[in-house]
């Protein structure tokens, strides 16, 4: 009779190891958020709500990281002073 395998010899689960920051989701975008810094009050709500962590606080301003922004428009919709406009990608 074959010997029973112990738990140590069971196959391990899959391990996802590369950070998804290597994967740029920016090319999904059809509309591009553009921030009007004359209107922006730096309330940070766009930074807070962006589902793709694509709005970054650089210490002075909120900046869109177009590598990841999927163009959902949540930031533009949530901005209390309407400082973000969604413009079609060229």
């Amino acid at each position, binding site marked *: 009779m074959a010997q029973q395998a112990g738990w140590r010899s069971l196959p391990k689960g*899959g391990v*996802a*190891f*590369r*950070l*998804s*920051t*290597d*994967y*740029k*989701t920016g090319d*999904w*975008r059809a509309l591009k958020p553009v921030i009007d810094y004359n209107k922006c009050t*730096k*309330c*940070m*709500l766009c*930074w*807070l*709500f962006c*589902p*793709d*962590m*694509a709005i*970054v*606080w*650089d*210490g*002075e301003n909120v*900046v869109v*990281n177009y*590598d*990841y922004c*999927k*163009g*959902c*428009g*949540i930031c*533009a*919709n*949530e901005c209390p002073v309407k400082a973000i406009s*969604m413009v079609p990608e060229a």
Partner: protein
Amino acid sequence: MVVKTLPEFPVKKGEPAYKLWIFEPGEKKEMPLVFNLRQLAETRRPALLPGHRLCAGCAAPIVVKLASFAFRGPTIVVTATGCLEVSSTIFPYTSWAVPWIHNAFENAAATASGVEAALKALKKTGRLPYDHVDVVVFAGDGGTFDIGLQSLSGAAERGHDFLYILYDNEAYMNTGIQRSAGTPKYAWTTTSPVGSVLPGKMENKKPIAEIMVAHRIPYVATATPAHWMDFMKKVRKGIEVEGPAFIHTLSSCDRGWRHDTALTLEVTRRAVDTCYFPLWEWTPQSGYMLTDRSLAIARNPKLKQPIEKYLELQGRFRHLLKPENKHLVKELQELVDAAWEELLRKASNAPR
């Protein structure tokens, strides 16, 4: 918190935008709960990294992001199978900046139980280099109301110390918008179609948060990502209590609910404004307590909006707005009103 810097999008002042959560052994400090957003942006990084492949405008990553801002220290995340899990860990990539484990669709709570038991054993034998390691589960409605219910109920009964966050997008979205026990009455899904015979799903939504209250665990709450402060406070409470805690969040899915991607949080706000999804928390000591916008509505009933305000933004309810279906909207309004009245009777902080 010691953090490793990723070579991605360096922002000014040498501050990296994305970081992994790495805690030095012996780290004792608890991260405070911060509501000043600039301070939050300068001191915290979300547990989810960009590059995940959830749809544009999906609320699930917002739920995770906000919850992680309320984590207090070393945290292990468990997810059930579903959109969030699938899209955040497409091999070989991972979007998790914290330790993360996925096992199956039906057993997120059992997996969390095992993780918690392992942590306990490590602590007992002096092999855990931290004061406490928190365990937080994120699971969808299919994985919670339906196939994962027995696993969740068992873990709650055994009293494992973890926080279970349900992101309820009201259908099996990952496999193509099939109805679940979390789908509301008269909503369109691919398995509750709308036509001349049926007006969408014919059954009521299962009261999952009340089912968890019935387990008499230390903390149960409802929350939404749109009411972010309320949500973050609840996450921290759920992590701090000893024993199981459960938070039911409403998590819009623009693909399945059929609304514009930009309206995700707008729809969510309307769910609360119409009392379709009231915000409350429950503890064995104080019973039901209304919170945030729902408390404001209880104090000033004029703020309560008609259910149409919630339905009108979503394609899954489009058929209800036709004149011949007026009676269905009336029925939904009556269901919402009855549940709201019942909650007002139960809530100890509702005005009388």
